[in-house]
């Protein structure tokens, strides 16, 4: 048999490409194992194992979905955001700080709702040194971006549904899954946006 | 009988460096259980150590000592082959004795 050098290169490339991803998709195996082995507990039902459109898209593409699909789903998520009917987005930043500190809620040993667990992943106020780095620092959030209505809307919207802005963000969709109430989200928005908030000093 | 201790005795010259791990809940009598009831006091009150049958260490212990405590002390005049035995007694009258043979110096 004879091989051209171009032919050999093509074969080598094909072999390497087939090694870059597993031989087959193991997600179906993983899903059937999980469906069989998990059970509901407390408020955490088995339905939580089911992917919604966002999770499915992110799981399928390892958090890197095609541009067009991402844009479409982000738009869908955005249109489902419930904005406060009174048009006011700022609540009480002092209450917001307490909500940001509270990491409870939504787990099987919990109730629904409770806190935003913001400090788990973010720096927020200047006086709390026990903050996580999974997400970017939110210190001086409005000081850096401006205090206008458009930034207020961006902050509220992100808290309500971070996936509306970045489809495969690791940030939970607090409003969308009712982990936070409208008032709590207003209070968190104030924590980030109020000129008097320690975040903006 | 209560759970076993873990005793480690290493010779440095004629001094034995003794470290004892004890399994004990060491309840202070101040903790409340899940139902809100006070968990009664249950802690080691006395520890003694004997080298070849002779008491070389005795301690009165209060409930301030933590759960599964470690006790460390040194004993002079120890030799390889000596029997070191540790006994504890708690406020409920429960007792435990464990023994090791001191190994040669490393």
């Amino acid at each position, binding site marked *: 048999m004879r091989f051209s050098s171009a032919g050999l290169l093509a074969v080598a490339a094909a072999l390497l490409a087939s090694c870059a991803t597993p031989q087959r998709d193991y*997600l179906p*195996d*993983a899903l059937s194992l999980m469906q069989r082995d*998990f*059970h509901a507990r407390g408020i*955490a039902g088995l339905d939580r*194992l089911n992917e919604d459109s966002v*999770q499915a898209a992110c799981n399928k593409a390892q*958090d890197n979905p095609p541009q067009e699909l991402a844009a479409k789903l982000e738009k869908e998520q955005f249109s489902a955001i419930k904005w406060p009917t009174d048009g006011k987005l700022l609540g009480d930043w002092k209450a917001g700080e307490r909500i940001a500190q509270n990491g409870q809620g939504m787990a*099987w040993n919990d109730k629904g709702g409770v806190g935003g667990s913001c400090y788990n992943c973010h720096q927020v106020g200047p006086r709390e040194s026990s903050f996580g780095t999974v997400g970017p620092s939110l210190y001086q959030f409005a000081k850096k971006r401006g205090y206008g209505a458009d930034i207020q809307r961006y902050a509220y919207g992100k808290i309500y549904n971070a996936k509306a802005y970045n489809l495969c963000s690791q940030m939970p969709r607090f409003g969308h899954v009712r982990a936070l109430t409208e008032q709590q989200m207003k209070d968190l928005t104030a924590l980030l946006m109020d000129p008097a908030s320690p975040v903006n000093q | 009988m209560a759970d076993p201790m873990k005793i480690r005795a290493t010779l440095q010259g004629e001094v034995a460096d003794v470290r004892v791990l004890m399994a004990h809940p060491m309840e202070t009598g101040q903790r409340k259980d899940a139902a809100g009831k006070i968990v009664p006091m249950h802690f080691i009150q006395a520890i003694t150590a004997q080298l070849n049958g002779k008491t070389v260490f005795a301690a009165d212990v209060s409930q301030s000592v933590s759960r599964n405590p470690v006790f460390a002390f040194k004993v002079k005049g120890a030799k390889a082959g000596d029997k070191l035995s540790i006994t504890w007694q708690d406020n409920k009258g429960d007792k435990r004795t464990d023994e090791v043979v001191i190994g040669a110096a490393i």
Partner: protein
Amino acid sequence: MLGLAAAVCAVPWQQAAAQAADPTAAEFDKFREIMEQDNPAELFEVKGEELWRARRGPKNAPLEQCDLGLGAGVVKGAYAQLPRYFADVDRVMDAEARIVHCMITLQGFKYEELAKQPFSSLVRTPEPVSLVTYVAAQSRGMKIAAPQNHPKELATYETGKAIFHYRAGAFDFSCASCHGADDKRIRTQPLPNFTKPEQAIRAVQGWPGYRMTGGVMHSLQWRMNDCFRQQRFPEPGYATETISALLAYLTVNANGHVYRGPGIKR
């Protein structure tokens, strides 16, 4: 051609471990070494050995003939080579799942009894926890070498990897949400990147571990359970295949590193 494919597809996760040159990590290692000198986990090792040899259960039998993968009754080195495939159950099992299996088959215990309250509390340490602590201690100082020979061992690794990356639950979290990137922390707790060999060791080292907060002994079955809780998932079954698969993924990623035995935690 097939031979060439096999050579080119050689397992890429067997990389040389690079030591992290991080001064904070070095200080924590020193602290951990001091704490590990008199680790109360040793009390559970001793208890576990007692349980291994004791006649217990409806069959009034010891666990001494349990095959942990290296032959009936061979405990030394077994933990470092788990999870692995077992022909008698035709699946991959992690250490604790295998111990539970032996408690059922050799001693006559029922899975439902053992799964009822499988995790340590302030007042009770379940037998499998002491047993897995004893078994783990017998691999102290040995290199982790979870096998990847049997087709089911290879498939279980991949399934575990898929579970690790599966985003779901109320918060859209996967294991990778916290453990899939470098240099992240949750509050002040560092989050190792378990997808990388040099960091995956931190998933395995220190477990089973004695938790000073509350003075309880916890194994990897507990740790996986508690992760899913924090991920806002429903609850995984105790000692199930899902957990074995996840542990296979983490352990194989850590292969080559030395296991220092049961650890101690805040």
